[in-house]
């Protein structure tokens, strides 16, 4: 443990330490605009001459298009254009997010080759949405259908391809397993899960000459702008992507997708602004959610429950035309001290849209496996589930063999167990009951890495004494607007309501992807730096400018607090606005980035903001950087009906310093709620004959409702971690969901004595 960076008296890094704005429980400053409807979302932009595009998707799972007959659609009222694979303009292949060249040849947003059910094959553009929708139904498609492989449970899909870069091993895992006195083995499965943000995907695209403006919800303004620019062969600066508000993304709004290309093509071909909104069913195949995963875990341990070896083999589905690896060893190889470990996985191509990121890709299903398996081991050796976790506590990163920067996981077990009342738990399954309900208490841990990329921010001070922060970083509800205002307010010495924040526009200073739970840390770092520089510039002028009231004091420095400048030597106190007036300045504006000073060229910045190649891994440097959590969950299982209700959740989390505890808690709770849905409800049901996800709507794809969610208690056990970030925070957004599903599965086992290893835990799995 490396506690040397911590102050003697532990500081929480929040308002309890005293101090000003950062760390206080300020409500979201964008909240009023959202609840009054004043916040304008992408699809609410109505431009002069706007026309509407509606997509047609394939109704077979594999094969090719023989003929598309658009005769009736072309002639339908209001129709301006019917785009087909043969009619759409070819685009250039765009660089990938890894900064590698895209596939060879032109990029075709519509193709005649069908690789999955629900692939975009045509688009109808008309004067009105209704006309486009009506005409889309008239497009006749004649297919040459081939057999689709719907899921990796189809034996024809085979074993898949090994992903060597996701393999992890140390020691002699197989041999150690064979010699272990206690061995358990089990296979865990998670189904296809979907992001289903309430704001559907879509955009408004408008060309002006060779300049493209796109209003589209985006988790990555700069990355998506680059893709649009490269598709159309225009300079990066010619694309303006605007996304001040996003109605949820959960990983699904980070990339420019085919429907975006289609809308931008239509706008160019027609020379009119085009709006395209996917229908809810279309969103299930316009981009991928979390792939189905399966993993077999073998644990070897001593009779006392001390791990000797972990052997893991995993697989996830991918598409036939791309590889998405869901890293199934990410928690397995991190959570516990084991002298031997071997983990490998494959991807199995099937006829589906390419899977993609959904809240904590990798960590989420990985934790489901190892956190259920360790629970199974606890029963096998007769040790309390919390105790066995502490017995195998990893004092350093067992894979990277580096010290943790901070790991308040022991504190999390302690605080969570105490708040939950864990010591009252009866260890035997089926030993706690209330009428028809079997009651179960389960525990599981979670983790999420600290990812680090540089960012930049503009901070301005204006004649009226107000400040402005500007960045292309985005706020999809997680609170970026608010914490950046808090950061700037503290750094400058202003009340937080005097700071305005502008986000989500490619015309503003750049930012990397709002993914990997990195944005809050990197943007507070950039804003802090820029705001301090703005304050320094202000003070410098106050000291040196002939018109400044402070000049005569010959001070080395001045204080700025609450928008008022003063000198430690006494004398006049002047507001920032008054000083600006006397200086005759309209504004002071500074741009700062957090790239290394030795390598911050324009080209380097571009790579930093538009690819993930400059994202530093959690183990780059001397420490291993991760956020941690533990969930204690109570379920009530109706013994006759098999229905599972989560009745209590206490989670203790270590996200380092919380910039705004209210917002961080909301993020954690949002993750926990999503985890409850994942554990009990969510599952893409794939018809194996056609590869169709048949519950492709919000009525049938079940996410948790308010009625499914009890009061959730979250406890912050984090301390500022300045190895992790400039201001001491670690990962927040994706942490909360990790470990929820195994905690529920473990609680269900404790309640019923039934070990459900495939999600979701629906009632038929618990009925005898």
């Amino acid at each position, binding site marked *: 443990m490396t506690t040397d960076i911590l102050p003697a008296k532990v500081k929480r890094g929040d308002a309890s330490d005293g101090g000003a704005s950062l760390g206080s429980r300020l409500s979201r400053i964008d909240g009023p605009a959202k609840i009054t409807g004043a916040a304008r979302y992408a699809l609410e932009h109505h431009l002069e001459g706007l026309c509407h595009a509606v997509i047609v998707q394939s109704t077979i799972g594999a094969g090719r298009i023989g003929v598309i007959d658009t005769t009736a659609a072309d002639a339908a009222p209001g129709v301006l254009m019917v785009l087909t694979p043969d009619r759409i303009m070819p685009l250039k292949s765009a660089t990938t997010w890894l900064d590698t060249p895209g596939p060879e040849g032109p990029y075709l947003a519509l193709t005649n080759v069908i690789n999955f059910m629900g692939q975009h094959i045509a688009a109808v553009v008309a004067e009105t949405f209704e006309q486009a929708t*009506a005409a889309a139904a008239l497009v006749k498609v004649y297919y040459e259908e081939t057999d689709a492989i719907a899921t990796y449970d189809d034996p024809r899909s085979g074993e898949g391809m090994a992903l060597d870069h996701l393999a992890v091993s140390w020691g002699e895992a197989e041999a150690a397993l064979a010699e272990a006195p206690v061995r358990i083995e089990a296979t865990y499965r998670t189904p296809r899960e979907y992001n289903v943000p309430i704001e559907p995907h879509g955009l408004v695209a408008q060309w002006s000459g060779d300049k493209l403006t796109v209003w589209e919800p985006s988790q990555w303004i700069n990355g998506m702008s680059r893709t649009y620019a490269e598709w159309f062969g225009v300079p990066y600066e010619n694309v303006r992507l605007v996304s001040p508000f996003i109605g949820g993304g959960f990983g699904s709004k980070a990339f420019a997708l085919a429907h975006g290309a289609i809308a931008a093509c239509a706008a160019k071909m027609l020379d009119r602004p085009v709006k395209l909104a996917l229908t809810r069913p279309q969103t299930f195949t316009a981009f991928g959610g979390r792939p189905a995963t399966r993993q077999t875990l073998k644990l070897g341990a001593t009779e006392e429950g001390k791990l000797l070896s972990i052997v893991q083999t995993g697989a996830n589905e991918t598409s036939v035309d791309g590889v998405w690896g869901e890293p199934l060893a990410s928690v397995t190889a991190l959570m516990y001290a084991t002298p031997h470990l071997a983990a490998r996985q494959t991807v199995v191509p099937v006829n589906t849209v390419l899977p993609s990121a959904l809240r904590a890709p990798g960590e989420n299903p990985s934790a489901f496996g190892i956190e259920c398996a360790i629970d199974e081991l606890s029963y096998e050796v007769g040790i309390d589930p919390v105790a066995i976790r502490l017995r195998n506590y990893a004092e350093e990163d067992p894979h990277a063999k580096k010290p943790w920067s901070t790991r308040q996981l022991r504190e999390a077990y302690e605080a969570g167990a105490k708040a939950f009342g864990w010591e009252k738990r009866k260890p035997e399954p089926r030993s706690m009951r209330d009428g028809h309900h079997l009651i179960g208490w389960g525990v599981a841990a979670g983790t999420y890495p600290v990812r680090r990329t540089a960012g930049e921010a503009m901070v301005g001070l204006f004649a009226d004494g107000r400040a402005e922060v500007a960045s292309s970083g985005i706020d999809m509800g997680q609170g970026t607007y608010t914490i950046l205002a808090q950061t700037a307010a503290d750094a400058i010495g202003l009340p937080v309501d005097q700071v305005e924040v502008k986000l989500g526009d490619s015309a503003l200073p750049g930012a990397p992807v709002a993914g990997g739970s990195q944005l809050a840390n990197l943007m507070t770092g950039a804003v802090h730096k820029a705001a301090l520089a703005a304050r320094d510039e202000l003070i410098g002028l106050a000291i040196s400018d002939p018109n400044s009231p402070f000049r005569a004091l010959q001070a080395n420095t001045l204080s700025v607090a609450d928008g008022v400048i003063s000198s430690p030597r006494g004398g006049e106190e002047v507001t920032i606005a008054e000083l600006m007036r006397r200086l005759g300045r309209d504004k002071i504006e500074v741009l700062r980035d957090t790239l290394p000073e030795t390598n911050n060229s324009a080209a380097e910045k571009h790579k930093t903001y538009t690819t993930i190649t400059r994202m530093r891994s959690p183990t780059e440097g001397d420490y291993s950087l991760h956020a941690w959590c533990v969930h204690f969950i109570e379920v009530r299982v109706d013994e006759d009906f098999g*229905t599972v209700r989560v009745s209590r959740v206490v989670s203790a989390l270590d996200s380092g310093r919380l910039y705004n505890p209210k917002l961080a808690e909301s993020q954690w709770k949002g993750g926990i709620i999503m985890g409850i849905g994942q554990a009990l409800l969510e599952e893409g049901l794939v*018809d194996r004959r056609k590869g*169709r996800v*048949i519950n492709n709507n919000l009525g*049938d794809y079940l996410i948790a409702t308010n*009625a499914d969610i009890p009061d959730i208690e979250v406890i912050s056990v984090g301390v500022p971690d300045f190895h992790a970030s400039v201001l001491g925070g670690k990962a927040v957004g994706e942490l909360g969901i990790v470990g929820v599903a195994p905690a529920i599965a473990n609680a269900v086992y404790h309640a019923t004595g039934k070990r459900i290893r495939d999600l*979701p835990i629906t*009632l038929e799995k618990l009925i005898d």
Partner: protein
Amino acid sequence: MRDFDYARPASLAEARRFAAEPGAMLLAGGTTLLDLAKCGVAAPVKVIDITHLEGLDAITFGAAGVHIGALAKMSHVAADAAIRENFPAVSEALWQAASAQLRNMATIGGNLLQRTRCAYFRDPLAFPACNKRDPGSGCAALGGITRNHAVLGTSKVCIATNPGDLAVVLSAFDAVVHLGERRIATDDFFLLPGMTPEREHALEPGEVITAVTIPASAAARRSTYLKVRDRQSYEFAAASAAVGMELEPDGKTIRDLRVALGGVATKPWRARDVEKALIGKPLEPEAVREASLLAMTGAAAQGDNHYKIDLAPRVVTRAIMKVGGLA
């Protein structure tokens, strides 16, 4: 979606005339019609908007029972104090149905006519075969994912579950559907699919549901609707039971019992065998459990939905025990 005519009849008589035209469909709350039009299942030639017709949304109590106008909103009926007192199962079925937004729009008449949630019925582009949508085209559900499909009242051409909650209660309490002058018992109003699954109810062209009446009874006053599902709100029943009971003055002999099931059958499923087995008998847990199994007489599973055969009798048992004060 396609163009359609829109008519706003001035009277019920005019609405009936319009409704007799081929391809005409009535619009009340719109929660089914708009949904099905969007997924390409409903393609009315003419939409007859009856939302503004007056005098069709009242809830009126008399000595014989309650008269609920066809345009009364689900949420309105669910919250009605006299309904809650005299027909608690009606209120419970309504507030457990759909979502708050839907209940505020949907009407009682429209609720009876809601279509199945069979995913194959609702997806004509990907699954052209559906005997309910297109008679003779086949049934894509057979051999597909059948977790939510019916185990009772199915035929070899259709296994779609009737999605109703309220209709289950109406069936249990011998409610009558009013089609103007013509009146028809709930149980007769809903039809088994047989070889004609496209025909789901006894409504003839030109007929409009005007009201539902539910006879007052001691069993209805002591009733419940128990709905079991994975999600606690906004989900159709995995299995549900409407149960009402009247006990003899001895406080333990069952004088009257009503049992109907939802979520498991192709129509609201009155379980008369269960009723007969228990009427006149003392209310005892073992007898109730045994009798509840009779509800599944003739049940046939498709694979994914086998659990319903186990689950439904348990739901019936619990509901009987609950109204009997034993659960």
